[in-house]
């Protein structure tokens, strides 16, 4: 018995070593750094909870970044999921070339984290860019979105929503799992397409919806690349695209306040974990698991 256990640990060891060195170690290090004044170059100085105190009570930009991030999450996540579900429903019907469309819609997600894509986005939404000119042609003059504080975040939301491919593929997999008999039975009972969507598809899909919601919410809280590239790392104009992670980055790497940045990372971790728990709790009565035989 002991020998087999030993073998098990032996085979597990690459993972255990990896997890310890790459995940647990750095996390503990960042927790320690969050309690210090650390400028990246000199040894950290212990200051207790001072970073957290300053963050919550003195730092206006911190709260502005929190507000911007919450707005970003609230706009981008529902928009992205609705788009993903709508397209998944369209693609779910068997038709010629379905695979091609699926790939085409999924492609933006593959490019998702790339810097070049955000650069293209910046050019598109700049004043005199494609979006500006198209809107101007139909009589809407907004100027460049990324150069104006009231529109800049919208450009980022649009960038996020456009990358709906990943949740779409998961929705598609979920849709394929719904037994056809349910639709046939509903049709015999006289249910129209809308009725079938509301009474069959959505309940049967609810675990997948929850999964996508949780995943996308976490992603949105951690969004960084788009905001960084579109604003050249500044979060401007006028701090309108200063997402939480971008401010964290600025504190750490341009203001040389890595201790403070580590504290911000821990606050984000706790908040994201909390939001995830709330989503699961809130969904309890709404999600239908077929296997539970209710």
């Amino acid at each position, binding site marked *: 018995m002991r020998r087999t256990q030993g073998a098990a640990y032996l085979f597990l060891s690459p993972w255990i070593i990896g997890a310890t060195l790459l995940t647990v170690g750095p996390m503990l290090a*960042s927790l320690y750094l969050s309690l210090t004044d650390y400028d990246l170059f000199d040894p950290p100085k212990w200051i207790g909870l001072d970073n957290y105190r300053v963050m919550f009570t003195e730092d206006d930009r911190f709260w502005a970044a929190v507000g911007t991030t919450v707005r970003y999450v609230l706009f981008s996540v529902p928009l992205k999921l609705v788009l993903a579900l709508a397209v998944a429903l369209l693609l779910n019907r068997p038709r010629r070339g379905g695979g091609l469309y699926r790939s085409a819609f999924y492609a933006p997600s593959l490019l998702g984290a790339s810097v070049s894509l955000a650069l293209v986005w910046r050019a598109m939404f700049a*004043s005199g860019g494609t979006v500006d000119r198209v809107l101007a042609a139909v009589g809407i003059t907004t100027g460049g979105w990324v150069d104006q504080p009231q529109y800049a975040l919208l450009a980022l939301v649009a960038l996020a929503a456009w990358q709906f491919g990943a949740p779409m593929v998961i929705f598609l997999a979920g849709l394929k799992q719904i037994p056809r008999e349910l639709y046939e039975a509903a049709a015999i009972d006289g249910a129209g397409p809308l009725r079938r969507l509301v009474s069959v598809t959505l309940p049967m899909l609810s675990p997948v919806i929850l999964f996508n919601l949780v995943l996308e919410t976490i992603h949105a809280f951690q969004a960084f690349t788009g905001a960084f590239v579109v604003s050249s790392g*500044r979060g401007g*104009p*006028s701090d309108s695209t200063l997402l939480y992670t971008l401010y*964290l980055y600025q504190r750490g790497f341009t203001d040389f306040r890595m201790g403070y940045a580590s504290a911000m990372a821990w606050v984000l*971790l706790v908040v994201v974990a909390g939001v995830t728990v709330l989503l699961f709790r809130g969904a309890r009565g709404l999600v239908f698991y077929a296997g539970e035989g209710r």
Partner: protein
Amino acid sequence: MLERLTRCCVRAVAAATVVAAAATTLTACGGESGGPTTLRFVWWGNEDRANATKAAVAAFEKLHPDIKVETEYSGYDAYFQKLSTQVAGGAGPDLLQLDRATIGEYEHRHVLADLGGMGLHLDKIDANLLAGGKVDGGQYAVPAGQTTQMLVFDPARFTAAGVTVPTEKGQSWTWAQFTDAITKVGAGGVAGTTDFGWAIDWFEVWLHQHGKSLYTEGKLGFDAGDLRTFWTLTGSLRDRKGVTAATATTKMDGSTQNSALVGKQSASEINYDSSLTGYLSSYGAQLAAAPLPSDGKDTGMAAMPPVSFAVSQRSSHKDAAAKLLDFLVNDPAAGKILGATRGLPPNQDIRTQVCGAATGANKAVCDYEAAQRDKVGPAFGAWPTGSSAIKRDFQRTYDDVIFGRISAADGAERVVQNAEHSLS
């Protein structure tokens, strides 16, 4: 199946969250050994500067076959974002370019090597200029050139608006003439000048014209009232299209790529003359340079290093890095190749030689500097630690002002408050 999918993935999600938090403590690693010495040399700037610097480095490599130099350059913001990450991760460059706002920051954090006793030849560099690289009594940086402020403008746009432009070398507009000129140009559609309220550097000149300075002995040399007056001036010009709209001003970072003048959104712009070669190549040779507007005898301008070179304290090839630095600053061949891409050469002998043979864009810089020689003051001292945060806060707050999110008066108060915090 679905249930399993959900269950499994909850764990995956939790793991992903954890990894994301841990990722913020990322450190990089690097370094190599054996074979010929390999140096890394990094700077920021435009294509012009990059091409000249690479050519100078190639000349250095030919002279020193045992030293290989890897070069890297980018825009200003990206440069410093990358630099701090690399230095912290132990993968910093050996030779690096810094400016006034950052020499103190990096020296204070023990990143820079004291260049005294490294065999550098600094006797041909003007003492006033050298002072720009002195911190805490040590020479931590060497000026890579000499520059002064300038107003670069397109004469055709001004004459088309019926305004006379300064033609005599070294002649400047008075403030009244200038505001009148730019509002007349602005009436034609293109703003008269790029809004100059964005940069603390131009505010510094304005302060000097009023007998004050940005910093005196590590403390702020101005109060919120001064800044309010300055920003009220630019604000009144914006309403009349004398200066650029907020959407153009917010992109400014001193580079020619993001310049409103180069983007044809304004007819003139304030910058350092070390950028003149960049303006001439990206806008066109018709541009002219004049001193900044001023009312009194004091132009408020100064001869100063646009950028400086420093050697990393953590470099394992400090001597080779110092050799390259010495070559870039003192070698006649390097001087010829580099021209005026970092302002005029800091070495007096090479400056005479370069300017004597200069043509085109380099000649424009030499001519402009020659015309200013008796009008500019000694170099402003190196900025204190905390000044790069102040510089960024200045621009960020001005963004809030030009987009109407805060009044010029409240913005000025905020800059002063935050600055005092950064300096303490």
